[in-house]
């Protein structure tokens, strides 16, 4: 094909069959996606646990501020309610912390460990790529010599090139085979690996929320008017507010 002027534009000879290449790309693509997912999930979980902790801290602040107020000193009923609320909030904080620790242990740590495998995988793929480049290069050299006229020195060089090519080709094929075999296994292992984490996460949440429900349920029983419904309270508030607005000392808006 020497009459073709643009040798550069010539497509690389396909030494690796298209199907193999495609399979490889597909498997590696899946793993790359998994890596991305793992990384993102780790970040999100960290954000989520931080947000949970901030939540319970601010809840505790509500009751602590209420308690520290001199208002409660004279008013026994209010004091009782606020003390009970404070206890509840502090227990909420404690349970939350425990939940976060649990999640840390059973979800975030495993995520990190799983993620630490990817650099090795990426290195392996890179090495295969390098091997492929070497293989291509040497293959091209062999073909170049094969096309020349068969003189003595050329034959010698051809033979030498073929000798060089063989181990490189074998190396590449070994790497390729290894990866093609092991990548799907790696990908499949995620199911067994992460299912326990998932279950543990769900369970931690369920336990936490059922505890919280119990705590706040008990608290509502302790309130000074447990019988009132929300609407009643709302109406009472409205009534009181208008009463206040009617007072002469209150500014007209």
């Amino acid at each position, binding site marked *: 094909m020497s009459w073709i002027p643009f040798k550069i534009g010539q497509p690389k000879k396909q030494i690796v069959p298209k199907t193999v290449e495609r399979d490889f790309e597909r498997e590696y693509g899946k793993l790359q996606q998994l890596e991305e997912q793992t990384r993102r999930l780790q970040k999100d979980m960290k954000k989520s646990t931080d947000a949970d902790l901030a939540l319970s801290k601010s809840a505790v602040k509500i009751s602590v501020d209420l308690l520290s107020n001199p208002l409660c000193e004279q008013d026994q009923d209010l004091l009782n309610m606020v003390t009970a609320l404070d206890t509840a909030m502090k227990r909420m904080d404690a349970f939350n912390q425990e939940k976060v620790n649990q999640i840390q242990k059973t979800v975030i740590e495993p995520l990190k460990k799983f993620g630490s*495998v990817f650099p090795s*995988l990426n290195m392996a793929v890179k090495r295969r790529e390098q091997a492929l480049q070497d293989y291509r290069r040497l293959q091209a050299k062999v073909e170049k010599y094969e096309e020349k006229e068969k003189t003595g020195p050329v034959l010698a060089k051809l033979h030498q090139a073929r000798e060089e090519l063989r181990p490189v080709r074998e190396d590449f094929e070994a790497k390729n085979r290894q990866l093609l075999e092991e990548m799907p296994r790696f990908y499949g292992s995620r199911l067994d690996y992460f299912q326990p984490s998932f279950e543990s996460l*769900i369970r931690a949440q369920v336990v936490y929320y059922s505890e919280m429900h119990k705590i706040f349920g008990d608290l509502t029983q302790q309130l000074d008017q447990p019988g009132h419904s929300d609407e009643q*309270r*709302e109406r009472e508030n409205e009534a009181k507010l208008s009463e206040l607005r009617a007072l002469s000392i209150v*500014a007209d*808006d």
Partner: protein
Amino acid sequence: IAQHHIPKKQLKVEVILEPHEVSLLWQCSKFCKPNLLDMGSLMIKPIQRVMKYPLLLCELRNSTPPSHPDYRALDDAFAAVKDINVNINELKRRKDLVLKYKKNDEDESLKDKLSKLNIHSISKKSKRVTNHLKILTRGESQVKDNTFNREEKLFRSLEKTVRHCVKNISLCLQHIQDAMPLALQSVMDLQEISHNKDDEMGYSGTLSNALNPCHDFASHLQRLTLTPLSALLSLFPGPHKLIQKRYDKLLDYNSYLQRSAGDESDLAKKEYEALNAQLVEELQAFNQAARRILSNCLCSFITLLRDLMLSAQQAYSTLVPVPLLISSISEIQNRVLEEVQNLNCVKDNSATFIERKLSFEKKKPVQILPEMPRQTDVHRSKLLSTYSAEELYQAKRKCNATQEYDINLLEGELVAVIEQRDPLGSTSRWLVDTGNVKGYVYSSFLKPYNPAKMHRMDAENRFCDDDFENISLFIFYAVHAFQARSDQELSLQEYQRVHILRFCDLSGNKEWWLAEAQGQKGYVPANYLGKMTYA
């Protein structure tokens, strides 16, 4: 009767609102007697009458001789009617004062404020300031009302409480709105990773319902708690202003108490008492209502929280299959991870720096150290008596002998430095005496011995050691000599020991390490370095 003052204004407004009634009235008046009074005149009749009575009675009394039997009754009647008038006036004064000072200051522009400034107001203000200072320095004022003080304190506490509640509950709501969707998202993401796409997609439906409770919670909380509390909070400034004014009047009245009674002091007294009485009465009502609202809002908050927790629990409950113990989780995961790590593609390519240097290490035989007698108290006291304080050092950590003439040290052992250099001239290796044997140790393992600070230093040093454990455990030496080609690099002699500060260069290239030797720093190629371990 005094109530008419207020309703009169309102009545005027009401009349305007019902034009058909007005027209009716007008029509009636047209057909009626021409001298029929209009509404306004009708309303003012009782007031005029009340004011006439004292005058009437007064005239009557003056024209009655004191000896007349009715004189007494007249006198009493006159006093009573006068009282009525005074009461009406005072009540009116109270309402007027309140009305006057209730006016919103924000409506006044700077010009209005400036125009109000005149000699009179300035002198009033300065008098008040001096009186205030007098009270502060000399103690209580002569005029005091305990009821008021109590109510005012309650008022202020309530304001602070309501304000804090609004702020804290809003913040908490914000956090809830942040945290719950995040948690949900994480669960869904984790589910995606841990399950195949095809099966068990039914889960996602129930999970998204959990987002809604958060939404409902937010809107209910707004309606039931935050809005009423905010509305309540906005009502506080009005009375607050009046309380300030009352204090001003108190100061005025106080200042007059010292002097003789007169018209001015009378006025001040009346004003103060009017304002005081009005405030006392209404603050009590205010405080009670406010407290009720506060406790209602708190109850609503708690109830809402309970409901929120329940719905979250229910949402997550639909997903849990079989409960698993934590221990079995880590077992399962470790097993899976091991399998993965045993995959050849992973094993062959793990890129930790320790492994890369393994080739230097493989041939090194394990050194069997001879059993060294440890330092005893006898040795230590011998050292302490033989050497002066500057020469005494303590081992920061355990030192193992690696070269000829090196000695082993345990952490905390006392040594006296004989010479701060070794036979080769290196100043980092010192000749020391343990009281038992003499030998060489690295100076970086020693610190000056200070018996007073011993306990604290130990703790500190332990901390430092743990930090650098992984790095200082491996002292590196140059396998080949290296010539620096720029001043970023560090020249090394063969077998020269270096301390590694960083295992990559500024661009993250792991081939070049930042090393330090003999006080100089620079980059050296990693493959020129070999590792020496001090176990």
